[in-house]
Every structure is written in structure tokens, then in C-alpha cells.
């Protein structure tokens, strides 16, 4: 590798060559000063819980953490809009000195009185961990006094990275919501969708297929979710886990406690959709359901065949780079690009695990560079060296990509285009085409016209 990287970062970057065994170093704390694209524990917890639409999300700490996370994600709601508000205890210097529990207690009482929410999530920030506010005790007290479910989320920012936050969110759901209400036990075909956040309305794009197969969706973790749907989630017969990075831990806990099996799925891409529907039907062992799934797949494939060929013709032979938060989406993207006749030259994630990277390695072509917890300088160098034709990433990568004259597609939580389901794939192809085939890149690479007016 010719790229110049910090010494402690070198083994986080590898190039696939044949049947090599090596994986990039991963599951480590971000290197200080390396400008990681990762966020913190609180951020991770917020990502998982924020889409719960009718809950109050109260950030216990100074105002910044709440400010920066106010309505910045694209998770849609069909009804309640409470989750789009930003609630903070806005701790001041005197609260830091004398402790923030009293303010938190009063804040919770105010919130419960005014909004009568079905639940309040209380997020711990760095400072709360440090000054030793007993979140659990305050939440317990208010729950007892008001009858409203107040859920502590132990997401102190310094506890680790985003992955710790996912865990904190899962623990909150598992300990305080799941199993607190009874559900309908009569219908045999109920699934939960886990790690599906209804970004840009993704959930609504896949829901009809399940309906058509006779499968009822019990709860979604957590896209377009309501608190009470989650309470009886343990009544489902199967957990379908999409965003593995965020919720596998919860699926495992539910399996242990409720003997509720889970399967990995992905609702992005042709292969993903096909597998998701077939996996579900096969699990239930219902012949009719399986036939219906196959019929849906046949019809939908036929329906989107034309548009996909149209875009494939316009994209074939281009190269792509992928930098995602988690590995599930990255993997699905490699497959999607293959389908469009594009080769992935770079794939990376903020917080992939060893198993994830093994899968990415298996799916990637020879010569693909694989990177863990990249920083902007590394990304810039690699995108340029590897001549990426498009980058798929999040907002932080967008303007880096633009400055390098590399087309860009946002596939993060703040995107506004839905990518799930069969139409989602066409949508994705359309956006890749939009950015790759824009006239702007020719202008950028063109020379200054001297003789324009002669």
C-alpha cells in the first residue's frame, strides 16, 4: 500500500488479494487525533431509540448534546411527532457543582404533566456519568409517582464508542419496555422488524409485501414505532434483523428470554428483498405463503427490470466507494453495485466487527481496499488513488467527496430518498445516475475557455 497513514492506523486498512486470511484491525477505540468519523455512546443510543415517535427523548446534560441531535435524522412518522422535538435539562455550572438529579426530577414531572407521554427516555451524557447523578433512581421515583414509564438510557459519551450506545439503547428497550404488555397470541404469522428505522419512509415500502404474504408486523425497532407496540414485541414469532450492528444484541437477548428466534435480513437490493421474503416464508413453513412470496418476487423483479436495465446502461463499468456506519448496509451496497455493473474499489465502516469484515472480504473483488474507522485524510487519499467513480456515505463525507470532484450518494440516517424494497433499489440507481452523469463533473475537469466569444 502506497498510502501515507498514521502508524497506529496502518493495520486498519487492507487490500484484498486472493484468498488471504487477514482482516483489517477493528473493534478498537478511535485513535486520538485521527479525526474519526464516529460519534459517541449517546449518539449510538439516540440513533436506535429516536425513531420511537410518541416518546419523549430527554437529554440529561448541558445543552449541546440535545442541540446537535434535534431533528437531524430522516426517520419518518405516520402520526406522532413528539420525537422531532429536542428536550434537554440544559445543565448549568451550578447544576454541575451541586448535582443534576433535582433538576432532572422536576424536569420529568413537568414533561409528564404537559405531554402525558407513553414513555420518556432519559439519556445520560458524559457529564452525568462524571458527576454521578443516579439516573436510575430518579427515573424509578418518577415512574412510581406518576405512573409514566421513565426509562434511563446509560449512554455516557465517554463509555466507549457508538456500539456501546447501541447496547445501552437495547438494554433500555429490553429492561423497560419489551414484555410489559400482552399481545395477540392467536395469529401465527407475526414478525418484528429490527434495525429498520423508516428513514425516508423505508418501512412503508416493505410493509405491503409482508401484508400480501399474510405476515403481520408486530413491532418495528424502531422506525415509525409507538411505545405500546414495543411493549408486546415478545409475542411475535420471529425477529427479522436488518441493521445487525445496532440490534443483534437485542435479538439475542429476546431469543434467550422469550425463545424468540431471529434471522438476518436486508431490505435493500434485489437479492436482499428476495432473501428477506423467502426467509420469512420458509421460517413459517407455510406452502401458500412461500408461493405468494415467490410470486411477489417474480412480479416485482419483472416490474423493475426495465428501469434497472436503463440505469445499468448508464452506470456500467464505473467504480464505487462505500463508507458506512455499519457493515450490513455496506455489504448490501457491494451487491447492488454488482447488479448495476459497477465495481466496488473501496469499502469501509465506522464500527464493523470481525465477522462483518470477513463477509465484506468475501463479497469484495480482488484489489478492493477495506478500511475500518477511516478519517477524512485517509478517505481523501484513497478515493483519489483508487479513482472512485462515486462515494456512498453520510453528510460528513458528502462535501469531502464533492471537493474531490467525486460524485456522492447519501445512504445515511439523514437521507431523504427511500432505498428499501424493490422500488428503493431503482431509486438508489436513479440517484447514482443523477450524481455520476451530472454535467458538473465535465465542467470541473474542463479547461478555461479562452476563445469563447470569437
Amino acid at each position: 500500500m502506497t498510502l501515507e497513514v498514521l502508524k497506529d492506523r496502518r493495520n486498519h486498512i487492507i487490500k484484498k488479494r486472493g484468498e488471504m486470511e487477514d482482516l483489517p484491525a477493528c473493534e478498537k477505540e478511535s485513535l486520538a487525533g485521527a479525526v474519526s468519523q464516529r460519534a459517541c455512546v449517546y449518539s449510538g443510543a439516540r440513533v436506535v431509540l429516536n425513531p420511537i415517535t410518541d416518546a419523549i427523548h430527554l437529554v440529561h446534560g448541558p445543552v449541546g448534546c440535545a442541540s446537535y441531535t434535534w431533528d437531524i435524522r430522516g426517520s419518518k412518522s405516520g402520526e406522532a411527532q413528539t420525537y422531532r422535538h429536542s428536550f434537554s435539562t440544559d445543565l448549568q455550572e451550578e447544576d454541575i457543582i451541586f448535582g443534576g438529579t433535582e433538576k432532572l426530577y422536576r424536569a420529568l414531572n413537568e414533561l409528564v404533566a404537559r405531554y402525558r407521554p407513553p414513555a420518556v427516555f432519559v439519556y445520560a451524557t458524559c457529564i452525568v456519568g462524571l458527576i454521578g447523578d443516579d439516573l436510575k433512581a430518579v427515573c424509578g421515583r418518577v415512574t412510581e409517582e406518576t405512573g409514566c414509564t421513565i426509562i434511563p438510557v446509560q449512554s455516557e459519551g465517554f463509555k466507549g464508542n457508538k456500539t456501546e450506545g447501541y447496547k445501552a439503547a437495547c438494554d433500555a428497550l429490553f429492561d423497560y419496555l419489551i414484555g410489559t404488555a400482552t399481545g395477540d397470541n392467536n395469529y401465527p404469522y407475526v414478525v418484528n422488524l429490527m434495525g429498520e428505522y423508516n428513514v425516508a419512509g423505508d418501512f412503508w415500502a416493505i410493509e405491503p409485501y409482508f401484508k400480501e404474504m399474510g405476515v403481520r408486523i408486530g413491532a418495528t425497532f424502531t422506525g415509525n414505532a409507538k411505545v405500546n407496540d414495543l411493549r408486546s414485541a415478545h409475542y411475535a414469532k420471529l425477529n427479522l434483523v436488518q441493521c445487525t450492528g445496532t440490534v443483534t444484541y437485542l435479538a439475542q437477548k429476546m431469543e434467550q428470554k422469550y425463545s424468540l428466534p431471529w434471522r438476518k435480513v436486508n431490505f435493500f437490493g434485489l437479492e436482499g428483498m428476495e432473501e428477506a421474503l423467502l426467509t420469512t416464508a420458509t421460517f413459517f413453513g407455510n406452502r401458500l405463503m412461500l408461493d405468494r412470496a415467490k410470486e411477489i418476487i417474480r412480479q416485482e423483479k419483472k416490474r423493475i427490470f426495465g428501469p434497472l436495465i436503463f440505469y445499468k446502461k448508464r452506470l456500467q463499468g464505473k467504480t464505487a466507494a462505500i463508507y458506512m456506519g455499519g457493515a450490513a448496509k455496506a455489504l448490501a451496497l457491494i451487491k447492488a453495485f454488482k447488479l448495476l455493473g459497477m465495481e466496488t474499489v473501496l469499502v469501509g465502516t465506522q464500527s464493523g466487527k470481525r465477522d462483518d469484515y470477513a463477509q465484506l472480504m468475501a463479497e469484495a473483488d480482488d484489489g478492493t481496499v477495506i478500511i475500518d474507522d477511516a478519517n477524512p485524510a485517509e478517505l481523501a487519499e484513497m478515493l483519489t488513488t483508487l479513482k472512485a467513480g462515486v462515494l456512498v456515505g453520510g453528510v460528513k463525507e458528502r462535501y469531502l467527496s464533492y471537493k474531490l470532484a467525486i460524485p456522492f450518494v447519501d445512504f445515511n440516517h439523514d437521507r431523504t430518498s427511500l432505498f428499501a424494497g424493490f422500488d428503493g433499489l431503482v431509486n438508489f440507481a436513479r440517484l447514482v445516475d443523477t450524481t455520476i452523469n451530472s454535467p458538473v463533473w465535465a465542467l470541473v475537469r474542463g479547461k478555461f475557455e479562452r476563445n469563447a466569444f470569437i
Partner: protein
Amino acid sequence: MNYVTVNPCKTCQPLGAIIAFRGIEGATTIVHGSQGCSTYMRLHLTHHFAEPIDVASSALNEKDTVYGGAANLKLALKNVLARYKPALVGVTTTCLTETMGDDVNRIVNEFKAEEQVNDVIIIPVSTPSYTGAMVDGFNLAVEAALNVLAEEGEKKNCLAVIPAANITPAEIREIKRIIEDFIPFIFFPDYADTLDAPFFEELPLIFPGGTKIEAIKRVGSCRNGIILGVCGGKNLAQLLTEKFGVAACRLPLPVGLKATDIFFQTLAEITGKTIPAHYQWERRLLLDALIDAHVITYGKRVAIFGDDADLVLALAGLAVELGMVVAICAVGPSNEQFVRQGAPAESILNPVDFDELAQAVRKTRLDLLMGNSKGKFMAKEKNIPLLRFGFPIHDRLGAGRQQIFSYRGAIQMVDLIANTILENEDLFVSFS
């Protein structure tokens, strides 16, 4: 609500410090705290300016918060120096490291001795998030930089110009264009080219631009100084006057006719020069634009809000010149100066969050909102237009290219406000 801030109309201090350090040539910033702080602030800034924003973090973990963050901060400094090869590094604290009690000055000095760093300037600034807001953090970072860099010297015919408010890269360019016609000057911090950067043939790790370190040193040799902003920046005016003997005054942001007049008059007084003819021409163009618009804007009711008191006051001033009624003037972070200045408004809200502001907005008749992107919910609910100014602007392009200063900027503003009102009223002919 008394104990909950609902939809905050403010952000935290380190964010402002990052912007300030971005205005020094060859500088980069480390946020001393957990990884999330720097990432969130990068996200917020990159959304607003549509530029890549690199900010390093000391990425503290659980152990560091117990035993102190010295080792991590040193490692961060080492890596940033190796990777970015900066001339200067700003180190901002966070609520976490302030509460831990890390002595950042000591850590930095140790680092410099241990690694024998002589050619890179490192400037720590204390910016806890549990006090103040973005603009305060900005002013603290400017103060820290001046304290480290500026030297008192023999006074020369030079003007130091320092913003102490939320002004855009394009507005920095406009201020520089004007002052250039009067007197040699040092504008600090100058983030015009680093936060509104062009397309580069080859992407530099640190964007070119920013006030030269040499120039910051010479601030103490300027005979006069102007601080842009009257609600903040008291610390900066004091510093210039008392420590460096620079005769400094604070001016309102030059938005609208009267405030721009004050700006030009001050320049004329300081330099003893008459105002160049082309500015007098621009002034008359503005008068013409104001006359054209006056019947459209007269009596229209506007609510103006934001996290920066100076910008809110400046916009209110222009609205009054347009004959508008400022129904609400609202500033998020508590600001004594703002309240004392007395905005020309029916109702002044400070401190305020968007929850209280929305309640006030619901209760009064309004034609227009002016403020940052977060006003979009109120605009939608009330079904009136929102003209986006200030920070953050996350749902429109060109935040860094917005320019409302001087007669020129005001002319654009007058048309924009009048046209927005016309658009909303859906008039099909002219307004005669």
C-alpha cells in the same frame, strides 16, 4: 417550562471556538473530550457551510475520565501534528474535560517539552458547554489567541477588525472590501476562505486562507480597533484597550442604513478620510430600494430570532427602516447586553427556547419570520414564510455566501424581504 429546555435556540461554546480557529492561517482544532463532541460539531458545521470540516478529538474513554485525559490529548496533538502539519493548533475543552479538571495548559506545555515542539503554536481555550453559547466560545477563542500571539508595539496607522458575532464568510469579504478603501487593517479571525472554500485542483488538508499568524501578532501595534458586535465581545474590547493600548470601540453589525452609516462614520473618524464617492452612491441606491419597497413592507409584522443577539438586533434595525413592526425579538442564550440595548420590538424574549418562542408566535399576528432553520416548524404551523439567517441553516444552500452587510447587502435584503411578502400574498400585478 421551568426545568426543561424544549427545542433549544442555542448551541455550545466549543462550536464557536472551532469557527474562530478556522480563521487563523494554517490552524486546526482539537476538541478535548469524548469523540462525539467533535463529530457532532463537525456535522453541524458541515451541514451549514457545505464544506468538509475536519476537527480532531482527544477521544476520551472511561479510563481517561477517571485518570485524566493528559495521555490522550498528547497523543491527539502528536497525531494531528504528524498528519495535518499545522502552524497552529487550537485546543478547546468540553463539559467533560472541564469537570474532570484537566489542566490543559500544563498538558500542552508538557507535550511541547516532551516532543520538543518549537515551531507549532498551541492555544488552549476553556469552553465548557454548561455555560455561555456559541458566540461566547468564539469570543473566548479569539481572546485566547490574542493573549498568546499579539504583542504590544509602537502604534501604527492600522486598524484591527474583530467580529464578536455570527458573521458569514461573504460578510467578512464585504467588510474587508470597505476597510481597504480607508486604512491598512488586520481582520481577525478571517474564516472567509476556509469556511467558504472554492473547488481546488488538489484538495489541501488545511484550507488556504485565514489571518496570518504574523498579522495577529501585530494587532497590538494597531492604533485603532473595531469590534463588530455590541452584545458580546466586551472581553475583546477590554483586552485590546487595556493590554495592548489599542483604542477599540464596539459597533453594531452594519446591517441596514443607519447601522451602516455608523460603520462608515467610524471609519471616516478613525482615518480622517472622507467616505469614498462610490459608497455614497451605494447609499443612495439603498435609499432608492427602500423607497421602492416601502408600501410593500409597511406595517408588516415580523418575528426575528436566533442564538446571536447582535444578528437579531441588526435584522430588527433593518425591519424598522422598512416600516415593519417587529412583533417579537428573541435570543436563545441569556444576554444581558441584548436586553439592555432594548430592541425595537413589541416583545423581547431572552433567554428563550423554540418552545416558548412558538407559543409567543402562536399568540400574535405575523407576516414573516426571520431566523435560523429551526424556525421551519413555526413557519409551517403558521403558514408564513421564513427567511433564513444566522446559524444553523441546514435546509438551504449558501449559508456562508449570505451577505447582508453594508448598503450593498441591505439592497439585496430589501428586495428579498419585499419579494417574499409579495410571493406570500400572491399578488398578480405590481403593488402601486
